[in-house]
């Protein structure tokens, strides 16, 4: 903040909180003097005809009102105070508007430890031209469709609905873009999932065979005597339509229902599914008491988890407490960057099931089951076991 700005703001505060005409007059002299010396253009803005006339009108109204109640002398004094106060506030407004820009605000919020608020302001500023343009376009379309001004006014809620929905969509896109690019400063960053175990991320489009691959892997690991823990989340399909999810313990094969599709607006975690607490409890149980050297399977890690909800806390606890030999996470393609950002892993191999010429099961087995030392992570300290 420049000394000129600080002086003008001090004058404005002094004038606002004092009712003595001498104090307000001194503040007016200070504000005008500083503006004249430091920013003459700002001072000229205060002298615009409309502002001067408005100030005179307000002072005259105050004079008349007080004169009515307490006599002319008192009225003139209060009217003078009002006029001087308006001069101070107008000068302060002009100087502030010219010397404080958006960048300054962002720097200030960052310095005050409110970086997130600064980013919100930045996003709002960036979105402003887009929103204004949309509002203008929507209004034009609305006028044309409505045929006349009165019809347009009567159908105003429809216009508002379109504009508000568009704003919501842009906000969703902004959040998705921020998440996918790994910009987490807007959100409260959860502690990353720390693991030194060999990690494989399996991805691919819907129906590409992610869950069957995980089943094959579990069978193969079982044949080799390597313990498995974690869970699978197969879809519940009725008449070719996905209507929910089950959760299956990777070690025991037990299954319970996790989520069921519901009517729009009734879903949880920003999804169109209602989740059952028993499902999450089951998931928690599947991640408890993991044997040493086991391969931990998480099928799948969704947007809910990447926002710190759903199975995230249980997975985090499991990675902190268990000495796992490998980690396999299934995730949809769009969430791969966000997952990798959320994982604090020593080495990550991404297997895309649509990649040609690759046997995904071999790649996954080769990565997870090797003869190299098993690394684990216990109580926040890395250790290596032979």
């Amino acid at each position, binding site marked *: 903040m420049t000394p000129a700005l600080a002086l003008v703001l001090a004058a404005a505060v002094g004038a606002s909180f004092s009712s003595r005409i001498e104090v307000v007059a001194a503040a007016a002299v200070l504000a005008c003097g500083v503006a004249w010396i430091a920013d003459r253009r700002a001072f000229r803005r205060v002298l615009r005809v409309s502002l001067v006339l408005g100030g005179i009108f307000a002072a005259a109204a105050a004079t008349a009102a007080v004169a009515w109640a307490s006599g002319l002398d008192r009225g003139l004094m209060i009217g003078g105070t009002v006029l001087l*106060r308006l001069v101070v506030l107008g000068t302060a407004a002009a100087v502030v508007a010219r010397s404080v820009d958006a960048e300054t605000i962002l720097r200030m919020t960052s310095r005050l430890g409110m970086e997130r608020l600064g980013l919100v302001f930045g996003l709002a500023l960036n979105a402003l031209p887009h929103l204004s343009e949309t509002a203008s376009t929507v209004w034009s379309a609305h006028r044309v469709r409505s045929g006349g001004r009165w019809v347009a006014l009567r159908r105003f809620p429809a216009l508002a609905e379109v504009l508000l929905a568009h704003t919501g969509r842009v906000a969703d896109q902004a959040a998705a873009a921020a998440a996918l690019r790994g910009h*987490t400063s807007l959100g409260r960053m959860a502690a990353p999932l720390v693991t030194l175990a060999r990690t494989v991320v399996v991805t691919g489009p819907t129906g590409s065979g992610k869950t069957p691959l995980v089943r094959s892997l579990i069978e193969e690991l079982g044949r080799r005597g390597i313990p498995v823990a974690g869970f699978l989340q197969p879809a519940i399909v009725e008449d070719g339509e996905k209507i929910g999810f089950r959760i299956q313990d990777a070690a025991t094969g037990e299954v319970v229902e996790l989520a069921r599709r519901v009517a729009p607006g009734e879903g949880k975690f920003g999804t169109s599914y209602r989740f059952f607490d028993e499902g999450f409890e089951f998931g928690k149980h599947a991640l408890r008491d993991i044997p040493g050297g086991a391969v931990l399977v998480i099928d799948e890690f969704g947007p809910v988890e990447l926002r710190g909800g759903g199975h995230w806390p249980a997975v985090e606890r499991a990675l902190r407490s268990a000495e796992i030999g490998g980690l396999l996470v299934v995730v949809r393609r769009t969430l791969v960057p966000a997952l990798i950002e959320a994982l604090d892993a020593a080495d990550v191999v991404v297997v895309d099931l649509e990649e040609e010429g690759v046997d995904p099961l071999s790649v996954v087995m080769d990565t997870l089951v090797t003869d190299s030392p098993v690394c684990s992570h216990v109580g926040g300290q890395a250790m290596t076991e032979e």
Partner: protein
Amino acid sequence: MKDLRPWTHAALYGALWGALEATAGTALHLGRVPFRGEIMGLIGLVCLVCLRRLQPRVGVVLVAGMTAIFLKVFTLGGLYPGPLVGIATQTLAVELGFLVARGPWAAALGGIIALGTNPVQRVITAWIVGGTEAATAVLRAVGELGGVRAGWVLVGFVGLAASIGAVGGVGAWRLAGRVVRRLGGGA
């Protein structure tokens, strides 16, 4: 990583409100349109209620209000205290409404407080600009001109504005419901 959507929604709905304050608000102000405070109050109410219905988190409305104030400071109105006092009061009113009630009742309560305090906001603005004595004298003069006490004039204005706020709040809630359906479920 936590959900970013409350922040982005607060930013976008705050930006929308700020943009409407800067454009429609300035136009209404320059055109000396009657009940311009109430009209802008209703617009703000719709933005905030819709935001709160899409992102039902405590504090999200406050962030949107701060964003709208931030944008308003850098527009034609500059630091003119009236709209800034209005935006801040309205933000607190809607947040309070949703803290103590739920559903359309919360929106109606927010509307009642937000618009019901509109005349009080004018008194606050008059107090900032003119001081205590000028604000009291203006109120008394208005009251005596009408042949009733100043307090009753204020009560009358508050009652009228609060009624508009209640109806506006419920309307905003229903409109927000349509927006949620249009977006396919919302939060």
